[in-house]
């Protein structure tokens, strides 16, 4: 018996010996084994509780009947990929189910991206559904000619791509010009694809020249073709200090069709933004952006819209007009302050985000709290508080408050 106890003790000692574990810290080599295929994803559970402003113009237009007080949704994101010998295939999907208390359920499956690519040295060619993400702005991207509009409430969310063919060539140099890269894309707009990239069916092309010059990112981009007016853009980004980054973006749009209350007009417009990201010694990160768009509606034009909403004979027409989209006017200020682990609360990041209409003085204030204390999990609670008088953008929104609870798990 003693023999067996001694033998067991020896095996235990061997099992727990430092030699087997390679020292105080362990690095399991199986973690870094490479496979040609990959699979990952996330599941997100989201619930919203709404506080409606029943006297607002947007409420009258969008919710003539009794609105729901809350809803909840689940979004399963699955990503797969295969990569070998310069060839790669990527697929990213979203399966989203939304429920409302009256039983009005909705399920939707979307290929967020699906493309195949080949790269060799400095050159790469990609075809399929993908996002390009041009521009340097955090909340706004006037020069993102080939992307869907950002959700300003959650600018870092993954977006659905467009069907494109893209070729990319990159060269590096020593000296003040360190990198030059050119991307050329081609895409079609028709009844089956890319419908929101233009009004007329046809073939289109867009390109972007990137330079890393004097430690500054600089992009010059264009878009042209049969489906919409020509566009030109540029952006820059630079680290001024070890804790300060500045960026800017400018875009010019030719022949933009502007919808007004009594018809349409065609005009040239330009949008620009200037912004900065600053980290303080106390670990507060500020992001500030000023966004200006000449094609946005003036206060007079918005006043006419609010008047029309008051007397709406055809609410659907107004409800789906550009007047009711995010940021329809000309000047906006975006400010976000987030603090890393205040009061020594680990993995806790509170933040405050403000989006203000610089013309009418209305604004949205959104305090939030994010906790990531469990590996691969994220809990987020966010409250949107909208403030503004009559005939102001945020004063006339459907809701004047909203509570959002979000749980996300990555696998």
């Amino acid at each position: 018996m003693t023999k067996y106890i001694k033998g067991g003790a020896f095996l235990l000692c061997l099992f727990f010996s430092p030699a087997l574990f390679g020292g105080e810290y362990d690095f399991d080599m199986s973690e870094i084994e490479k496979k040609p295929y990959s699979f990952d994803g996330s599941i997100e559970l989201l619930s919203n509780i709404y506080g409606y402003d029943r006297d607002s113009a947007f409420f009258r237009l969008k919710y003539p009947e009794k609105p729901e007080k809350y809803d909840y949704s689940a979004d399963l994101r699955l990503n797969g990929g295969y990569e070998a010998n310069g060839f790669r295939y990527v697929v990213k999907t979203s399966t989203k189910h939304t429920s409302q208390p009256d039983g009005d359920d909705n399920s939707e499956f979307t290929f967020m991206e699906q493309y195949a690519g080949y790269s060799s040295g400095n050159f790469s060619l990609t075809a399929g559904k993908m996002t390009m993400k041009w521009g340097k702005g955090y909340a706004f991207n006037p020069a993102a000619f080939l992307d869907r509009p950002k959700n300003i409430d959650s600018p870092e969310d993954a977006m659905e791509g467009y069907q494109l063919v893209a070729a990319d060539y990159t060269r590096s140099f020593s000296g003040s010009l360190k990198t030059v890269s050119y991307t050329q894309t081609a895409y079609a707009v028709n009844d089956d694809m890319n419908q929101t990239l233009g009004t007329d069916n046809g073939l289109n092309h867009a390109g972007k020249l990137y330079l890393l010059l004097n430690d500054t990112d600089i992009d010059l981009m264009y878009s042209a073709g049969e489906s919409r007016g020509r566009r030109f853009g540029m952006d820059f980004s630079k680290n001024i200090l070890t804790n300060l980054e500045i960026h800017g973006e400018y875009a010019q749009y030719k022949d933009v069709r502007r919808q007004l209350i009594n018809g349409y007009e065609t005009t040239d417009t330009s949008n620009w933004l200037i912004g900065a990201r600053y980290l303080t010694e106390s670990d507060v990160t500020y992001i500030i952006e000023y966004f200006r768009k000449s094609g946005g509606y003036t206060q007079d034009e918005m006043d006419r819209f609010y008047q029309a909403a008051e007397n709406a004979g055809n609410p659907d027409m107004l409800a789906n007009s550009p007047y009711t989209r995010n940021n329809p006017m000309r000047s906006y200020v975006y400010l976000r302050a987030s603090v890393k682990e205040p009061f020594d609360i680990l993995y806790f990041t509170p933040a405050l985000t403000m989006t203000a209409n610089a013309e009418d003085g209305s604004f949205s204030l959104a305090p939030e709290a994010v906790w990531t204390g469990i590996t691969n999990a994220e809990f987020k609670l966010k409250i949107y508080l909208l403030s503004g008088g009559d005939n102001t953008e945020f004063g006339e929104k459907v809701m004047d408050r909203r509570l959002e609870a979000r749980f996300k798990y990555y696998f």
Partner: protein
Amino acid sequence: MLKLAALMLLLPAVVFAADGTALLKEIDRNLTPESYESYRKLINIEPNGAKREYTMFTVKKGLDRVASLFLAPASENGRSTLRLGENMWLYVPGVGKPIRITSLQSVVGGVFNNADILQLDYAAEYDVSAVDEKDGDYVLRLKAKTRTVAYDKLVITADKAGKLPKKIECMTQDGMLIKTLYFKEVKDFGGGIVRPSVIETDSPLYRGYKSVMIFAKIKKREFKDEVFTMGFMSRMAELR
């Protein structure tokens, strides 16, 4: 005559600086080849002992090009960081485009900041202002070449025989200690690379916290310059 006297007085300092620079370059080369690939695990250890781990694949070329790809945990998988001199970017697959980050930020939290994770050669960022000997070790005092370097001053205590760092103290311009890096567990990685396999760090600014970096599979490798560009950040996995 006066000029000659002044020159003679200055000469030892100039020679000392030159020797110090050569010594610092030797320490850099003993730590890593000029161009290499490696795997690293970063562990943030909280005061209560709880840990969070990150696994990264890192490549470096020349004095000022370094890039890293996160492999684990799942919430970070596919993220990549790139440094070209003082320019730094972070690519997040969901966000889709690289954004500029600054050296004092930290993409992983804990005591390590971006400058620690995307470490360049010390000789690329610092001038040697003095070299002393203490208890059989070299003590190198370094001063940042520009204001954009994360730490204005470094004090490197290096083993005299192996010319490898044992401890690096990182300080502000006023001499305030920001953090201390401890180099431990010297290991033979093959290919003539013998260096500490573990770097621990603590900081008076993060009392009770500790961060650890463990190295594996460091090996010499040459890369094209274009690997170290923003356009390649989404394709870094191709290098593994």
